[in-house]
């Protein structure tokens, strides 16, 4: 089928953009979660939420 490779490229590139965006957000979330846990553990016992 003519141009099927172009359709395939459009979908693959499009999904790659979403995938990269989601991975970036997920990595930032994981880093922040680690930081929150570290900071909570550093707080004196009486002031922990």
């Amino acid at each position, binding site marked *: *089928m*003519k*141009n*099927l490779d*172009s*359709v395939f*490229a*459009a*979908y693959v*590139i*499009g999904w790659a*953009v*979403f995938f990269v*965006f*989601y991975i970036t*957000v*997920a990595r*930032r*979330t994981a880093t*922040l*979660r680690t*930081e*929150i846990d570290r*900071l*909570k553990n*550093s*707080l*004196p016992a009486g*002031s922990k939420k």
Partner: protein
Amino acid sequence: MTKRLLLGVVALVLVIASAYASFYIAPEERTMGVIQRIFYFHVASAWAGFSAFLICFVANLLYVWRRDQKYDWLGVSAAEVGLAFTTIVLITGPIWAHPVWGIWWTWDARLTSTFILWLLYVSYLLLRTLVEEPDRRALLSSLFGIFAFLDVPLVFGAIRWWRTQHPSPVIMGGANSGLEPTMKAVFFFSAFAMHVLMVFLVLERYNVEKMSDEVDVLRRELETA
């Protein structure tokens, strides 16, 4: 399973189903052939991007009015997601255009206004990196976001007001436009799937802002403890 994760699974299932429908359920367009199937991804992404920018615009207005940091978090989250969708529009458009028009790009009204829209939201995000003080950053970026959204109706109207290279609208395009019923159903399903994905990504990104704020609060508590 959290609600956000459940929404992510639903979004994934919907976008896979919409891709299947675009290839196997929608009939082949007579003039353009298989390349027209990009339409279901390209236009659905554009609509989801517009909706994300609308969320950003409303959040920006609410921030200016209420000065609540949560609206700033929502604004930046929706702007980033809208930018991702617009990037897809700007990539898939030329891939579709090349075999049909014989060119990758032309400075026609729709293409140019979409590119300007992309640049405006890149500027919105860059502006945020230049201002350190949170309240000032939120106010300046909200005001810029309100201004940036003015380009959205321009992009929407460009193919209605100026007849240049980009095809005239097939949805909401007036009496002489329209889509074959199956194509129309597949398109609206794809647009719905993209909107669910957009909402999921905005919520995920909003969570990053919320957690960043929690880190700042904990750091302040630690300094004063």
